[in-house]
């Protein structure tokens, strides 16, 4: 038995990446970044606000958090709705208490169905990032390019109509992109996406789109839902991350701590206290700059 000869040839074995999407750059070699008012750590809170149809789609894949049981899956449909009705408002109160403005990555269907929720988010000064249409709006290679283009246009158009402002940012469901996504987002006028987790500061694709890395490892989905740690352990881990980044920032320039939270995960009664305590602690640190993603991107761009 042997493998096809092509399995032992390496046509893209060359200096730099095996793709042309973006160029290599080591964080430690870049010019240090400074944040407004001399703050050391940009704390970027990003909430994923999602609507899961009770009829789940599997094309190109079923979104994380989607329906599980045979139809009708009341338990998951309503648990996700709990996040939007209850959990989100606990989070919004926590942000207000800590004085944090944040990003809310929002399915455009949320805007259509619940414009009052959008109004509450916008009134508090938070940023809307586009997050597809609904949780059937997943993207991966194989999705026809016209369908992907239409999905992006619908999401941006609807959020613009309801919120009064076209989102500058995009977060894909499960951070999943096709080979076309980076160009389609650019074509739609998006300034940054949040899908690539390879860095800790913004960077630019070769086509001009910016990536603002939303660390998936630091998300409540990863730490609480997948790894099954408590909210108290989550808060301790985020606190440890902050301490480390603040230490690096003391000598190497501004750092960023992304905090990716989900209303139906973090917004539960037995978890929210730990999250509020974390935010209060971060608010009390002199290094903290709470900022929505778009402001971080703008501050970074101005220094490139």
């Amino acid at each position, binding site marked *: 038995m*042997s493998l096809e000869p092509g*399995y032992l040839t390496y046509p893209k074995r060359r*200096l730099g990446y*095996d793709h042309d999407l973006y160029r290599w750059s080591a964080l430690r070699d870049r010019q240090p970044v400074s944040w407004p008012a001399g703050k050391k750590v940009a704390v970027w809170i990003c909430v994923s606000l999602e609507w899961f149809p009770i009829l789940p789609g599997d094309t190109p894949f079923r979104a994380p958090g989607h329906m599980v049981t045979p139809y009708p899956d009341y338990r998951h449909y309503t648990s996700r709705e709990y996040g939007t009705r209850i959990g989100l408002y606990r989070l919004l109160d926590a942000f207000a208490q800590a004085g944090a403005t944040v990003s809310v990555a929002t399915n455009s269907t949320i805007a259509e169905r619940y414009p009052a929720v959008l109004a509450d988010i916008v009134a508090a000064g938070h940023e809307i990032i586009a997050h597809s249409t609904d949780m059937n709006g997943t993207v991966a290679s194989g999705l026809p390019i016209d369908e992907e283009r239409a999905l992006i246009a619908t999401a941006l158009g609807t959020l613009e109509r309801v919120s009064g402002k076209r989102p500058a940012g995009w977060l894909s469901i499960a951070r999943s992109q096709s080979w076309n996504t980076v160009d389609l987002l650019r074509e739609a006028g998006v300034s940054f996406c949040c899908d690539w987790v390879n860095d800790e500061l913004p960077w630019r694709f070769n086509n001009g789109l910016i990536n603002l890395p939303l660390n998936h490892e630091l998300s409540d989905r990863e730490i609480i839902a997948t790894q099954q*740690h408590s909210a108290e*352990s989550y808060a301790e*881990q*985020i606190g*440890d991350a902050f301490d*480390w980044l603040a230490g690096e920032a003391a000598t190497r320039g501004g750092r960023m701590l992304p905090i990716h939270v989900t209303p139906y995960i973090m917004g539960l009664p037995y978890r929210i206290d730990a999250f509020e305590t974390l935010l209060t602690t971060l608010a009390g640190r002199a290094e903290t700059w709470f900022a929505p993603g778009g402001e971080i991107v703008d501050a970074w761009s101005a220094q490139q």
Partner: protein
Amino acid sequence: MQDGMADPGLYAFSPYRGRPKIVWPGGKTVAVWVAPNLEYYEIDPPANPQRKSWTRPHPDVVGYSHRDHSNRVSHWRMADAMSRHGFPGSVSLSVALCQHHPEVVEDAAKRGWEFFSHGIYNTRYSYGMDEAQERAVIEDSMATVLAATGQRIRGWLAPALTHTPRTLDLIAEYGLDYTCDLYHDDQVQAVNVKTGRLASIPYSLEVNDHFGFFVYHMSPRAYADTLIRQFERLAREGEASGTVMCIPLHAYLIGQPHRIGPFERALEHIAADGRAWISRAGDIVDAWRAQQ
């Protein structure tokens, strides 16, 4: 190995009790080595019939970019923490990293780290290779690392832990003298090979950061405590005969901002203890070999 036999015949059975005493330099009881995996994963690799590289259609953005974090951010974070406490690395290297990101390989070489091969890419698997193909990978590994670092590789950790029944015999034939692919012991052990001589140095799946975080779902502090408990036990048992503790790492995991602090405290603990011979894989194999 004995291909097709129920017992692959990899080594002689040797129970832990009553072994000759191994003594590490300076009277240390446990040889501690750190094995950072410096890897390159391809974004669009060809399919191996027996194993998929990515679970999603290409590009698997999270899978690929998570690993890319090593080569942009976390390699230096991990390496600095190791250097601060006097731990050299023995690198499990996707040798194509020498072409893609020579800056990372140079950094490791400058720190005095040792390199062994972890295949060409961690997205090309050995399953299904014929002998000529497997020889090509070994020869490529030796030549690539020699050209990039001046080092002759001595060891092997199969790419993504994928083997053929020939692998151990072939690497020994090429003069490599240790393998990290066998998990049967806490001490260095001889491996049966057709020609040459091969030692198995304890690597570890159990305290590998990948297992700690993605199989056992440990918190960063729990993983650091695990390393300390592993060390404490092996240091105590090593009074009877020297043991080996390996800490296998991936920068994109251990170098995340919530993990590196607790990890550094574990390194600090081990370095301060006094019972650890903090060393490199090749030096450990040499010290063991000298006592056979």
